[in-house]
């Protein structure tokens, strides 16, 4: 059953224009916008860990310049792997992109190192914050400027800029990062990434382990950065509700495949998303028997 549907879908993606452009579709948004304004494009990438474990099974997505795109899905769906595949941090975990292409600003970046990519303006903020615990907040920010060659004055100016976005970091600038709160560490991690003057930030689960209020604050700042600094974001999140409120477009990942994608507003209205990711069921609560039905549909979608 699934094979013919899949084939139809693929040919449809190749053809233009699709019959249901506004509805969530499996088409990448890049087709509609034109390649010039796409900052990041993944074409059908496959990732294998330890030479045997297939984690991503053909993921395609694109991020338009100046937009926030959300990458949603449950634990183990492949969100972090996707981000690490882009930022080239995968090799350190014995992962490998075995198929497909990753284009940043139109250039294939697959063979670059993480360091090269940061120089080009694409940086990842890792899941779980990963601040340098024994460095002060300000030293943490300074490490983010490691790849820059434009002098101390510019770096100082940018530190001030980061402090205006994250006033809390200014208060804690001389504190050892390991002793600051989770929210402050997340801010520090984002601020540190900003210090490399990125065009695009790959933001992995900024909401992890933080109080809802702090999450709200951090997402607000992300949006702010997006609007004022023109930084594009690819945002991996489990907090679907939050992510869809701030993103303009979303992809839903399951078992290493994109099963759904669409405008954020359309996704948050989508019945399946509502039911399985936002936890809002139509009418009364459904029983687990219905999961079977969903699983069947998932297979169909994949």
């Amino acid at each position, binding site marked *: 059953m699934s094979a013919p549907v899949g084939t139809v879908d693929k040919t449809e993606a190749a053809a233009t224009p699709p019959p249901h452009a506004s509805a969530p579709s499996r088409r990448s948004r890049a087709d509609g916008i034109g390649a010039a304004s796409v900052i990041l494009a993944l074409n059908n990438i496959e990732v294998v860990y330890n030479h045997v474990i297939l984690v991503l099974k053909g993921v395609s997505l694109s991020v338009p310049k100046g937009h926030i795109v959300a990458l949603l899905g449950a634990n183990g769906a492949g969100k972090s792997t996707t981000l690490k595949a882009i930022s080239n941090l995968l*090799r350190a975990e014995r992962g490998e992109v075995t198929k497909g292409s990753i284009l940043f600003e139109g250039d294939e970046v697959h063979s670059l190192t993480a360091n090269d990519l940061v120089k080009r303006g694409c940086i990842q903020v890792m899941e779980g914050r990963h601040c340098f*615990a024994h460095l002060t907040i300000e030293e943490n920010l300074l490490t983010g400027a490691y790849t820059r060659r434009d002098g101390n004055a510019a770096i100082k100016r940018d530190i001030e800029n980061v402090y205006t976005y994250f006033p809390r970091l200014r208060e804690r600038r001389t504190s050892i990062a390991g002793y600051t709160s989770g929210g402050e560490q997340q801010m520090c991690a984002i601020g540190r990434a900003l210090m490399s003057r990125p065009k695009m930030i790959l933001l992995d689960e900024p909401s992890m382990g933080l109080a809802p209020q702090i999450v709200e604050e951090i997402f607000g700042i992300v949006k702010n950065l997006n609007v004022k600094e023109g930084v594009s974001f690819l945002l991996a999140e489990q907090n679907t509700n939050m992510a869809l409120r701030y993103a303009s477009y979303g992809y839903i990942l399951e078992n290493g495949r994109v099963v759904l994608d669409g405008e954020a507003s359309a996704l948050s209205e989508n019945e399946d998303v509502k039911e399985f990711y936002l936890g809002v069921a139509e009418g009364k609560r459904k029983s687990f028997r219905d999961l079977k039905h969903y699983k069947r549909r998932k297979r169909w979608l994949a």
Partner: protein
Amino acid sequence: MLGPILETLIGGLLTGVLYSLVALGFVLIFKASGVFNFAQGVMVLFAALSVARLSEFFPMPIAIALAVVVMIALAYAIEFLVLRRLVNQEGIILFMATLGVTYFLEGFGQTVWGSDIYKIDLGMPKNPIFVLESVFPGGLLIDPSELIAALICAIMVVALAIFFQVTRVGRALRAVADDHQAAQSVGIPLNQIWLMVWAVAGIVALVAGMMWGAKLGVQFSLSLVALKALPVLILGGFTSIPGAIVGGLIIGAGEKLAEVVLGPVLIRMFDLAGGGIENWFAYVLALMFLLVRPQGLFGEKIIERV
């Protein structure tokens, strides 16, 4: 009575500086990669062997310069063949890798340079100096070569401390020590950083090897001075350059003083044979420190958020 004690103290402090020099190599690598480099002692031996043998064919300054090249090449080989493949692995795995490097280098050094006892002649003044002759009868004896070693060590320590604390690369080194992957994610090239730090540690080993080699002769047992660096590290803290110095001074002075002051007491009170205190004093001191202050005097606090 005060004269001999003071003399022992000064002698101990100067020996301590030499301990610090060895400990410094450990600290550098530990600080920058979180790896306890078991091979440091053997690197000292290898460096000393290189200088000793090369100086047979070249004048000393050229031999030293060539030995620097050898140590940098060694750092490159270790980074390329071992560390690069172990990015993001547990500390214990990296430690095991350095254990392998140790035994390889031990044999390889003999294969290349031979296994006889060689000597390094740095042309340092050998005749002891006597100071404060007006205060103490006979004055205090100081070994001038140790004094020079102390001076070199002090310069290296100040330079390295500034390098780590203030410069961009030094900051990157500390960042790498904290979190390999995060350092990579912000664009710090791990391979270059490791190469650099192993090269610097190699050069520190070279200085230590030359000083010890000139003192004891270059032979296999030179690699055992690394064992004396262990209590120094525990005392001073694995991550602190000033700690390595202070630790070295305490151990150096402590063990010599213990021999002179504690020895007679033990002999009188327990009717022991006495002697040999110098051999165990440092380790007992380190053990006591581990119980009270596991991160050492100046080590980075073990950060635990609750």
